[in-house]
């Protein structure tokens, strides 16, 4: 009786007319220990199908949120740039106070001269400071020369 039902299901199965429920009945039948000898040949087929369904994908997939990070980063960079620019623009008008300006051209000229004199004398101070450097240079030259001569002497030897 049951065997007859299985045979009918098998015929339907090979015509691709069985439902998934019916196919599960077949799978269950062929995984049982007592399969009718004349149906034995179908056992591997259903056994294989059932076995194949147990394979698993074990790898973990790296899910990057890269694109979003870049967007955030550029937004942040833009913000920093903008705020820096604003701060710069806001600061500029400040020194336009009266500091260092003169209404009378004569006074302005004198002050300028004074400033330039001060500058030039300071430049001289700076240049005088360079004298030491000259001394250093001389010494260095001497050592270098001696060293050089020694070298050439030793070569001659």
């Amino acid at each position: 009786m049951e065997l007859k039902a299985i045979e009918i299901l098998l015929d339907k199965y090979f015509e691709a007319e069985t439902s998934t429920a019916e196919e599960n009945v077949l799978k269950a039948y062929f995984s049982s220990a007592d399969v009718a000898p004349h149906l034995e040949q179908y056992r591997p087929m259903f056994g294989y199908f059932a076995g194949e369904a147990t394979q698993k994908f074990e790898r973990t997939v790296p899910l990057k949120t890269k694109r979003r990070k870049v967007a955030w980063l550029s937004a942040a960079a833009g913000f920093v740039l903008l705020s820096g620019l604003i701060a710069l623009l806001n600061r500029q008008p400040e020194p336009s106070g009266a500091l260092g300006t003169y209404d009378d051209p004569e006074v302005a000229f004198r002050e300028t001269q004074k400033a330039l004199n001060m500058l030039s004398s300071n430049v001289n101070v700076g240049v005088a400071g360079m004298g030491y450097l000259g001394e250093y240079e001389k010494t260095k030259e001497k050592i270098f020369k001696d060293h050089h001569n020694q070298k050439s002497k030793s070569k001659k030897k």
Partner: protein
Amino acid sequence: MNQSEFIKTINPFKDRLFRLAKRLLVSTEEAEDATQEVLVRLWNNRGKLKSYNSVEALAVTITKNYCLDQLKSKRATEMRIVHSNYTDRDAGLQQQAEDRDSWNWVEKIMDELPEQQKIIVQLRDIEQYEFEEIAKMMDMNETAVRVALSRARKAIREELTKKHSYGIKSN
């Protein structure tokens, strides 16, 4: 869609994608690569996923197309890895060894099938999708799916019968 939502969405079917990829690409390594690629593509398009009725059907279609492309572009020098992680069953040890042997036979027979039939058998007999779903995934009508499936099943039967009767005769 955030990461945990995405993982919740793909978890029920990621093994199926892998098995389909493996059916087509044969090597476990390549199948894993393909599955990863498909999942990353889904993730990159996660914003659009909600507009699909079935993300699973979409994922199967993408996997199928991706693997067929891979096969076309490489016709890879396939390395066969015979897996032996079958579940234990009631039958005795001797029987199990015989089963494994005959399962390998089924696998070899399936490898010889045309790609379309291979995929349909995979989707129906192993993954148990409904014909309606398979038709969508394959971009075919249901009748055509049934015809291809019937042909594939009969081809497997024919080869198995040959093998089976050969075994009996040689005994």
